[in-house]
């Protein structure tokens, strides 16, 4: 019962948040505080609602909204509650963050932005809870449209508008596939209710078609390579707390949709479903990490890193599907737990880093890493939060990213159990190796992102004048940084929640993961065994630091002298420090077959040609999929349009002529038979 009231509370708060701006629009400051506070309350309700569902069982209710297609049924089961929890946690943090961050937008349509912000949260909460085909498609579409307007917030900038249009185009291409998948199922089931879609009898051929539609449709939203092109454009264009929500939460609704279909509706499929997901997932992960590394716009870098992490999540899902096809329920449970754990972790650490990037942007007014530097001294708290986020993203042990990556590794290692023979073994080894490559690329990428942004000397005047951001922003970042540490040290907490979330699905068995002991995470089922103790690793790390400290202090008090960095006798300046472009140069060289880069060196000679020359080094990256896939499509559309233009002149007489010709042809056609 309580969960029901809490659910209504979520809807009520977010709706109030949308409308509240009407009453407070005279004073933007009041709008900022009131609307974001209401959003925070709504998110808090979402967290509570999720926990009540975990402890008291699922929630069923019918929303009193009249649809042409019957009642709009809402059902919050474990899976929905898990995603509702993510929306709540990240939404709460971004709402607090927005108090300070929205100051940027006091002169730039703030009321509209906060209203859309609430609408965005509301639509995402509905997407993961509505259990009705038409209702789902409607709220999915609302979510896409609202996020389109949020990406287009600064529509004076041409890049923003362009990014927003590419985003809306791509997301609609995806929606076509999603609608097809739903309708194919709904027609076969004769019902629009999610409950009736389960286990519908459709032919194998149709099931494969539905699977492909689901994969392409939700894959576009999730940013699978090569459907990812909207991501690195849309994320930098949106305000930072919106990017945090989009990357952390909105993309995850695609994973929700996939899980709903694969675990609930479609039932056990053939093995090639899983293998196909694995192949696309590993390409997505590796290319995402590679593109992130060669990027030097910090928000684009984060967007590509999101692509990479979606790849890791899909690796878990793909492995789970392979196990499902062979009825390996326990291994499927581990694989899906890994995927969903990574969903949560990625939501936390990526939102955290986006917020950190937003703080840097607000303070230094640039997102180009090459102009930043030395911020660790100006913004110490932001720096620590970003360091924790970076550590979690590259999966350092004792931070949360590591546990889910470890579980993914385990799932991949046991792939030969389901996929027997030589191919299975080699496939498993290659996937593990490529995931390792992805991890190493991500490590290099985030060392670059943190090191160039926060360390060394300030590379521009803007960076020199940066100051620490508002306390509310630091608090929001601190909250998420704390979650990174807690869920890294004690993965049992989140895995227990995940067991509650997945226990309703009979095709997988999540009880294989043993979480009874507070320090140990293990699974042991005949051939399948493994264990890890993050707390133990943490304790050993601490012991190691203590030993190092003892060695360090044993020889009396250290005498330290301060001097300038050694630069061969020249006075050091910020231009001597390594740049992001230099840091990734060797990788660009090695992977030049995949990322085509063109280095351009411009020399502008002054009067004296031996001294005072200015050198500009510019790198242009050509993306393989843009030039191979998208540009030809683009050109074909434009060619067709040009061709149509010559037929469509606008003269009424000509159109009458067309109609007559067609009528004559039809008449002849019809009389012949």
């Amino acid at each position, binding site marked *: 019962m309580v969960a029901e009231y809490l659910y209504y509370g979520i809807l009520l708060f977010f709706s109030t948040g949308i409308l509240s701006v009407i009453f407070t629009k005279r004073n933007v400051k009041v709008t900022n505080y009131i609307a974001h506070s209401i959003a925070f309350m709504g998110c808090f309700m979402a967290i509570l609602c999720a926990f009540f569902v975990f402890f008291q069982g699922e929630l069923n209710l019918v929303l009193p909204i009249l649809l042409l297609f019957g009642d709009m049924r809402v059902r919050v089961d474990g899976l929905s509650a898990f995603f509702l929890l993510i929306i709540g946690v990240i939404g709460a943090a971004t709402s607090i963050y927005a108090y300070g961050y929205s100051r940027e937008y006091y002169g730039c349509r703030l009321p509209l932005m906060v209203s859309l912000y609430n609408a965005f949260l509301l639509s995402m909460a509905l997407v993961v809870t509505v259990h009705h085909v038409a209702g789902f498609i409607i709220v999915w579409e609302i979510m896409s449209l609202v996020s389109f307007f949020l990406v287009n917030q600064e529509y004076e900038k041409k890049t923003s508008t362009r990014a927003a249009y590419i985003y809306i185009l791509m997301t609609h291409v995806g929606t076509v596939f999603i609608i097809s998948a739903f309708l194919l199922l709904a027609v076969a089931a004769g019902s629009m209710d999610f409950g009736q879609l389960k286990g519908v009898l459709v032919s194998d051929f149709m099931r494969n078609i539905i699977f492909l539609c689901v994969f392409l449709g939700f894959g576009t939203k999730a940013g699978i390579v090569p459907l990812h092109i909207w991501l690195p454009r849309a994320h930098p264009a949106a305000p930072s707390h919106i990017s945090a929500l989009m990357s952390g939460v909105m993309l995850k609704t695609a994973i929700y949709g996939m899980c709903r279909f694969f675990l609930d509706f479609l039932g056990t499929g053939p093995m090639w479903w899983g293998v196909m997901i694995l192949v696309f997932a590993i390409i997505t992960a590796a290319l995402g990490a590679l593109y992130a590394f060669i990027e030097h716009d910090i928000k684009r870098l984060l967007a590509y890193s999101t692509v990479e992490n979606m790849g890791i999540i899909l690796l878990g899902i793909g492995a789970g599907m392979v196990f499902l096809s062979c009825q390996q329920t326990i291994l499927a449970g581990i694989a899906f737990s890994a995927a969903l754990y990574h969903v949560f972790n990625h939501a936390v650490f990526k939102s955290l880093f986006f917020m950190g990037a937003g703080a840097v942007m607000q303070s230094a007014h640039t997102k180009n890493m090459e102009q930043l530097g030395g911020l660790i001294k100006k913004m110490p708290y932001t720096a620590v939060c970003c360091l924790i986020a970076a550590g979690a993203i590259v999966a350092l*042990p004792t931070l949360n990213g590591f546990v889910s990556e470890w579980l993914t590794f*385990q799932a991949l*290692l046991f792939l030969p159990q389901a996929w027997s023979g030589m191919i299975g073994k080699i496939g498993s080894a290659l996937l593990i190796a490529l995931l390792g490559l992805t991890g*190493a690329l991500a490590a290099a990428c985030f*060392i670059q992102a943190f090191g160039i942004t926060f360390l060394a000397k300030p590379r521009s005047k803007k960076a020199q004048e940066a100051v620490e951001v508002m306390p509310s922003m630091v608090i929001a970042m601190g909250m998420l940084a704390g979650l990174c540490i807690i869920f890294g040290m004690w993965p049992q907490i989140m895995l227990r929640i995940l067991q509650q979330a997945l226990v309703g699905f009979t095709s997988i068995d999540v009880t294989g993961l043993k979480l009874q002991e507070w320090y140990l995470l293990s699974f042991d089922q005949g051939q399948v065994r493994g264990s*890890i103790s993050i707390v133990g690793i943490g304790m050993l790390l601490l012991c190691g*630091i203590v030993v190092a400290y003892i060695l360090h202090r044993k020889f009396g008090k250290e005498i330290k002298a301060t001097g*300038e960095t050694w630069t061969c006798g020249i006075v050091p300046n910020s231009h001597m420090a390594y740049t992001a472009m230099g840091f990734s140069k060797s990788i660009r060289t090695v992977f030049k077959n995949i990322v085509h880069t063109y280095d351009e060196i411009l020399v502008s000679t002054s009067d004296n040609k031996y001294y005072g020359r200015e050198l500009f080094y510019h790198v242009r990256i050509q993306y393989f999929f843009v030039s191979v896939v998208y540009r030809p499509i683009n050109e074909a559309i434009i060619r067709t349009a040009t061709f149509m233009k010559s037929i469509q002149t606008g003269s009424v007489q000509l159109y009458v002529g067309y109609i007559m010709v067609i009528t004559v042809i039809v008449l002849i056609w019809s009389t012949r038979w």
Partner: protein
Amino acid sequence: MEILLSFIQALGFILCAPLVAGMIKKIKARLQNRKGSSILQVYFDLVKLLNKDSVISSTVSWIFTAAPYIYFAGALVASSFLPIFSFSGKGLGDFFVLIYVLAIGRFFLVLASLDAGSAFGGMGGAREMFIAIMVEPALLLSMCTIALKAQTSNLTIMAASAADSPFSLAYIFSAVAFFIVLIAETGRIPIDNPDTHLELTMIHEGMVLEYSGRNLALILWASAVKQMVMILLFVVLFLPWNLYDSANFLWLVMKVLIMTVVIAIGETSTNKMRLFRVPNFLAVSCLLSLLALVAQ
């Protein structure tokens, strides 16, 4: 309890690691017809450095100070996972954990190299990450050859499974593959020259160029531990016979000695390769691992 015993094992590693490094140096010197310094020279160097004052750049932040501690702690944790005694690393972690624990130290050390804002540090850090990116898949592939056979990532069971089978083609392939990774991971010739101090060729040395005194001592010591961890990982996985036997300790010392001789011979008979040849070198390792999988 197991954590405590593993910790004691790690302390043992810390004590012995400089000796292994000294032995390699000595053997190398003898192979080059030099007398060479004493085997204990690495200890003397460490003590000397620990007694020295430090010069710290005014540009650096707390990351620079913290990095040596974390690098040291990472090496220590990694060494506690190796299944040398029956208790060690039981349930604590597996080879994925071992690799990622070593990555913690690298992560902070590369950050520290960027911290001082000198071109040398950045160059060293960038190259270190470049090699790490290439090594990671090769390392995982060579481990997978054994892990997939043992059907677990637990190092103890992997070692036992490896000891079960006699010398086979697959084993020789994967041993060679892992040896290449070992060379790359410990930063030895032909990938990196641990003795060079020429700015344009050094990788690891360039990264730690700004360090002096005690901080440098900690980093050098941790590097020695890391090298010993990799050597013993090779011993445990690829020469695993008589692991828990009565005379096991003597055997272990023998095997480590063999490894040091092999490394020293390898190092004297080749020269450092160009940086962009490294991917090819590691591709050989990957290919051998895949062959090993096929031959299994």
